[in-house]
Structures are given as structure tokens and as C-alpha cells.
């Protein structure tokens, strides 16, 4: 992982003027990709090791259920048979490599709990998570950035204190507690929205548009929860960066040459604030596919988070394995994206 400063240096050191920026960028991206692959190898190895330690696995439960059938084999025999069937009778390292060999070809096996291929289950649930994350992401940007900028413009004003306190409350709110309060107010007391689920009871009888509205209504509370819990950090990030930019010399120059305050803030300061913000947001784009495990579980939204939660509880190794590696890939991808975006967005980096 390179910090932005290092990229800056790397670009200079690589004699950018001679070779051209694109070439350097390509090399940089390639190198980062290779490092990511190596990292992924170790991460998945660790995850696999932990997964194999899971004692309350689906296999044991299954064997327990099978062994209670009349005239059945003993529990131990069933465990052995199922272990062989699911490829758990090998050592951890050996098992990992056979898993990895298949995973490279995007074959993650069948989910034990859902009884269908992992990727099939994944593709059927991922869009709920994505819709949820996207909705809260867009709202987050729309609210947090203006709020952060206005807070920075009038430091130590009432607005600034309000934004700071609201942002900190958002960061400090336990998602499960906030979700419970929302449910209590909007579902129990007011009765406007359902407590759980993604669709209402009469979903099947609705028209296509009605179905969409039904799902959207069920998404309101989860989106709100995600939004409030995550908005704080972006607000604070925007505020801090805007403060930094407003204190920079070029802003003083802009003011000194007699530009209106509006122009100074909207053109000179805002554009420069965007550099780190776009980098941050770009880096969090892959995270939109990661699912919100706690929020989805609380509202029983059948997204990737809730599905994985059920799988973890049930000891469904193939699915959990896939999910954890998927999350690791998203993290790596996010970092990579952030670093690339930093170079792309900031003209100073490119020109040099």
C-alpha cells in the first residue's frame, strides 16, 4: 500500500517527463495488482484456516440429523462420510490448495445451507445489498459534502458545531440501537412501515410498479440506518479538508486579488477539496457490493450481508469462504482505486 505522497514521488523518480505518464501509471497499476494477488493469497489462506477451525460446522449438524434417523449409521460414520463428500478430510494446506485451484476458475462450490451453487445464490442476493448501499451512498454524498463545506466556511459558528455534533453522533450510534429506535417509531408506534423483510404480505398481488414501491418502502428504514451511521465520517472528512484548503496560500491569493467570497469558495476551494473526497469516495465504491451485515440482518433484507450472516451461523463453509474472500477483494480493489484516482483527479500529480 502506498500513501499518496509516495505515488507523487514515484512519478517524479520514474522520469515521468521522458517516458510519459500513462506508461508509468500502467506500470504502477500492474505492480499494485501483483501485490494484491499475493496479499489475496495470504488472506484467503488465513481465512481458510480459520474456517476449518469452525467446530459447529454444517457437516456436524447434518451428521447429527442423519444419525438420528431410524436404522442409520452412527454419528461418527456420518461425519466421516460427509467430510469426505465435502472435501474436509484433507489437511488444511492441502484443502486450501484444492479450494484455491477451483476458486481461480470461479468455481466456489455449492452452498451447503442454500443447496445451490455459491455464485448463483450470490448473484440472486447481491442486488438488494447494492441497491441499499447505493441509495445510502448517494444520500450520504448529497448531504454530507454540502454540510461539511458550510461547516468549514464558518468555523466555530453554530452551523459548525451542529455539523460536528451530528457527525459525531452518527459515528457513535450503534447501528442496531438506531435501527431499533427507527423500528419502534415508524413500525410500532406510527405503523407506517413493516418491521422486517423486503416485501409486504400482498407483494405478489401488486402490479409491477406497486411491487417496486413495496420494495422501496421496505428499503426506507435500512437506508436511513446506513445513512445515519455512515454519514458522520464523510461530513468530518469534508470539513477537515475544506478547512485545510481554505487555509492554503492560493486561497489567500484568490481573496487578495479581489474575487468574491462565493467564487473563492465555489471554484478555488471546492475543486481542491474534491481531490481527497473523490479519492475517498472512489475507494469506497467497491464497498457498495460488500453488504451491510448488521443492518441487513436487523431488517432481514435478503442481501449478501444477511445471507452470509445466516451462513456463518449455520457453518456453511463454501459460502462464508466465498464471502470473506469477496470482501478482501473489495478492500484491495478499493485501495487500488483510491490510489489510481488520486493520480487521475489531481492535475498536479499528472503534470509532473
Amino acid at each position, binding site marked *: *500500500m502506498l*500513501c499518496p505522497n509516495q505515488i507523487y514521488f514515484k512519478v517524479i523518480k520514474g522520469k515521468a517527463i521522458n517516458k510519459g505518464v500513462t506508461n508509468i501509471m500502467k506500470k504502477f497499476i500492474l505492480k499494485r495488482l501483483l*501485490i494484491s494477488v*499475493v*496479499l*489475496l493469497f*495470504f*488472506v484467503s489462506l*488465513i*481465512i481458510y484456516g*480459520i*474456517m476449518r*477451525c*469452525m*467446530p*459447529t460446522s454444517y457437516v456436524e449438524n447434518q451428521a447429527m440429523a442423519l444419525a438420528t434417523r431410524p436404522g442409520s449409521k452412527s454419528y461418527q460414520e456420518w461425519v466421516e462420510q460427509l467430510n469426505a463428500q465435502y472435501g474436509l478430510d484433507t489437511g488444511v494446506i492441502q484443502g486450501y490448495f484444492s479450494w484455491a485451484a477451483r476458486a481461480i476458475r470461479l468455481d466456489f462450490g455449492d452452498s451447503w445451507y442454500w443447496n445451490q451453487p455459491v455464485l448463483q445464490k450470490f448473484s440472486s442476493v447481491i442486488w438488494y445489498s447494492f441497491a441499499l448501499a447505493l441509495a445510502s451512498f448517494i444520500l450520504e454524498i448529497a448531504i454530507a459534502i454540502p454540510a461539511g463545506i458550510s461547516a468549514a466556511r464558518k*468555523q466555530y459558528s453554530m452551523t459548525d*458545531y451542529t455539523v*460536528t*455534533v451530528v457527525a*459525531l*453522533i452518527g*459515528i*457513535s*450510534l*450503534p*447501528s*442496531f*440501537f438506531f435501527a*431499533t*429506535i427507527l*423500528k*419502534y417509531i415508524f413500525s*410500532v408506534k406510527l405503523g407506517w412501515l413493516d*418491521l422486517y423483510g423486503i416485501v409486504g404480505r400482498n407483494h405478489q398481488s401488486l402490479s409491477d410498479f406497486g411491487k417496486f414501491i413495496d420494495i422501496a418502502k421496505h428499503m426506507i428504514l435500512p437506508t436511513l440506518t446506513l445513512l445515519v451511521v455512515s454519514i458522520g465520517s464523510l461530513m468530518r472528512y469534508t470539513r*477537515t479538508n475544506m*478547512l485545510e484548503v481554505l*487555509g492554503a496560500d492560493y486561497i489567500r491569493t484568490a481573496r487578495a486579488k479581489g474575487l468574491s467570497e462565493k467564487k473563492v469558495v465555489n471554484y478555488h476551494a471546492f475543486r481542491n477539496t474534491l481531490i481527497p473526497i473523490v479519492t475517498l469516495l472512489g475507494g469506497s465504491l467497491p464497498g457498495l457490493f*460488500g453488504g451491510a*451485515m*448488521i443492518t441487513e*440482518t436487523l431488517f432481514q433484507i435478503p442481501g449478501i450481508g444477511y445471507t*452470509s*450472516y445466516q451462513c*456463518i*451461523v449455520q*457453518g456453511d463453509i463454501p459460502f*462464508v469462504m466465498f*464471502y*470473506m474472500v469477496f*470482501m*478482501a477483494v473489495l*478492500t*484491495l480493489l478499493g485501495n487500488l482505486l483510491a490510489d489510481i484516482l488520486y493520480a487521475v483527479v489531481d492535475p498536479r500529480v499528472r503534470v509532473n
Partner: protein
Amino acid sequence: MENNKEEMHLDDAARVKVLSPGMMVAKRFFRNKLAIVGIVIIIAMFLFSFIGGMLIPYSQSQVFYTTEEIKKDYAGATQIAQYQFQTVEGESLPADIYSKTMIAASTDKYVFTSRDGNVYGLGTEGKDVFIVYALEETKLLLKKNVDYEAAVEAGRNTFVSNDTTYLFDGDDVNADVYIATELAVGSMSSFTSFSAGTKFTYEFYRNALIAVSNGQKSFEADDTTYEVDGEVIKTGGEEYALVSDMNFNAVEAGVFLSPAYKAAATEAFEAGADSFSYADEQGDMVEYHIENKNGQYLLKRYQETRVIDSYASPSKAHWFGTDGNGMDLLARLMYGGRISLLIGFVVIFIEVFIGMIIGGVSGFFGGWVDNLLMRLVDVVYCIPSMPLYLILGSIMDFYQAGATTRIYMLCIVMAVIGWVGIARIVRGQILSLREQEFMVAAEATGLSTYRRIFKHLIPNVIPQLIVFASMGLGDVILAEATLSFLGLGIKYPAASWGSIINAVNDSYVMTNYLFVWLPAGMFILLTVLAFNFIGDGLRDAFDPKMKR
């Protein structure tokens, strides 16, 4: 600065108050209102959890009980619809005697063969009172037999002649005659003694039944004379037994239903009443409610029962009410606060320790050491933490780890996952500090590596570390609360704020018992918020550049 109202001179030494860097930071920090609020909240939380936990008379896992009036089954009563048999000692009856007797009584055929082939007869002794005999066919001339004629006269089908009991079957002198051996007495009545522990003999049963059904005023049995008064049998003026056509059974074993109680109940049944009152052992009148189901009566009464005082509303004894297990919520909040705060500090301490060493080494030495350690940081950073916590939680579930073990394990795992952020900060900071003049000077003076790291570099990193740690504390408390909320962190009987809110997984609790989950949630929010306020204030205080 404020004292320039007084007359001051430029060369006055007291004019400029020189503060040490630490004092400057403290001064700036205490000027921040939010940070003060944070400090106050944290101190309050510590007092609440640690001092409050000592002062509160309850422990975190003390279960409280309450007494409740519950309508409970007391006794059952059934109209006796089947013949009850009392056998002569040492004799036994065939299994189908009940059905055979019923048939015999309704068809007036008093001699029958049981399933095992023996012949039995019933001697009619009164209304619904029979004596069961084992029969043996014999030849006896009935004509002119005095005993026989007396029996016919009395409407009986048995007579005693020469110390042998005979039973005849038929209306005229040609009837079949059997030698009868007495086996049992059957009736549709049951006996209750007035004093517990009295055992009735067969002779008593037999004679009492005959006397009661024939309306005799007295009878003799076992050399004692008994008087009959309605359904009550007395001896020597004292009540001895009650004969009733109802069968009473107490629901709880060991409860003695007195005949007087039975008599009162029977009276109420006959009157068709819904309830009746009867004095209990202490002499208090207790009301018994009667439920009639096709001749089966159920007697219920309100009884004080000790039940767990679950979800009790806030009261003087329990200021925050009780939870589902009947434990005092205030005590649990206090003990939960201890655990939440403790976990926060322990985890942050371990995180800072690991992070400082790895980050410091990495930043100071650079080169391949840096590369290797940073890749390690990247690997740990990539492991998704929440699923990992869940998996480890279920592993601990499987091994049934005790409450304390879980707390330690949780601390270690959270620290092992969380140190990477600190390592990165420390490394970044040291990388930039390393190039500064004072480090070059330190190297030039020939200081040892150890001294350069720990005396010159680390103190310069500490401000950042404190800021990060105070904010990280909030995150750790949040993560612990989330885990406990999901039921995989701190477990019963130990309390944590997250596990208290766990009760909302039951929608009924969420809807009706706001006092169970709201305070715990507010406590988490306030504590985390306070740590963030402090962290924010510290950052501003350490970094005066931000204050224009």
C-alpha cells in the same frame, strides 16, 4: 492575555505568561466545550459503572422473584360411575370384573363367567352394593329350605346355611345353587377418613356399605360399633369416615382433602353453584371455583405463586426495572458498563502496544523490513472483521467458553485485528520525523538506536496515538456492543450493554418494554460519543494549525 487591563509595562516579566507545550495543549483542550462534555460523560460513566456497581445492593446475576395470584387447579372431583371394589385380604379379582359387574347389574343376571373361565356371582346387598363371590356349583335341595325361603322373602340371592354361603340363580326352587366364597365388596361410593392415615379394613367397608345402603343406623365391624349419620360414619361420637359417590383427588401430592371439604364441595355441585367457600388450615375463607365438565369437576383457587419477576417496570426497588431473567437492570447496566469500558481500554492498550512496535520498527528501519511488515499490515487489514468475530463467537459457543474466557478472547481477537490502523499511523509519522533535523542531530551525537526510537521518535508520535486511541476506544466499545447484541460477545450471566439490548430481538419486548433496551442504547451512544468528543478535542489541541 486577559490581564492587560491592569497597568503593565513592556518589560514586566509577568506580562507574558510562558506555558510549557503540555500546558498549552491542556489549555487549548479545556477551552473546547465538546471535549469538556466528553470528559464529564466519561467520568460519570466510570463512577456509574465502578462506584455504582459497588454501591448497588444487587449483583448482576441476581434473580428477583415476585408473588403473583394465579388461579391454580386445586382438586378434581368425579362422579363415580364404575363399581369400586374392596377385596378381602389375600384375594384377587379377574381383570374384567368391572365390565361384568356393570352388565350383571343392568341385566339382573348375577352369575357370570369371567374371561379366565371362573364363575363368579354377585350377592345383592342393597342399592348398588354387591358382594362378589367365587362360585362352585353344587346340588342343594332348595324346596323347604328355611334359609332359602328367608332369602327370597328379603329379596336376596344369597343365604347362609351351616356356615356355608350359597348363591342361587333363578326364580323358582329349580334354580342353580352355588357354594359362594366371598371375594370383595363392590359399590359406587368412596370412603374418606376424617383423620389422615386411617386405614379401613375389609370388614369395615363391607358392613359400612351394607349399612349405608340399607339405611341402618349402626353396624359393627372389627368389634367396634359404628353409627351411621347420613353419609358420615361415627364411632364413639367422633366422626370417623365419609361415604360419598364422588371421587376427589388433590392436584398436588400431599394435600389432604378433608371429608368436610368434600361434603361442602358435593353440596355445591348438587346446588349447581359456580363457587363455594371453605376455611383453610389457618381458618381463612378461601373461595374455590368450580368448573364442570360432564360430571367431572375441577376445583380452582387463587394461590400465591413465586414467579421470576421478569420485565418489571421501573420501581423504587428496581430503578430501571428488571430484564427477562428477573435481574435488576440498573445493576446489569453498571456491571455491563464495567465490561464495556474495560474491554475498550484493554483492547486499545494491546492495539497501541502492537501497533507502536510494528509501525515503529517498520518506519525506522525502512527497506525490506518496512516492506514485509507493511504487507503483513495489508493482509490483516483485508480480513473482514465482522464475519471473523462472528465465526470466533460461534467457535467459543461450541467450546462453551465461560463468561470470563469469552471476555479475554474477545479482547485478544479485537486487538489482533485492530492494531493495523495504529501501525500505519506510527509508521507514517516516523517516516516523516526520521528525515527531520533533530533526528539527524540525534544520530550525529551517536545515540543508540534504542534511545533514538524510544526517547526521540516515539514521544513525537504520542499525540497522534492519543487522538487515535481515544477515537478507537469508541469503535471498540461499538464493536463489542454489536457482537454482544448478536449474542456472540459477552454472554449471560455476565452483562454488557450490547447483550442487554439483545432483548429487542423479541419484538414483544421491543414494543412493550422500552425501559429494557433504551437506557443501554443511550449508555453506549453517550460513552462512544464522549470518547469521540475527547478525541476531537485532543486533536484540535495537539494541532494548533487547525485553529486559524
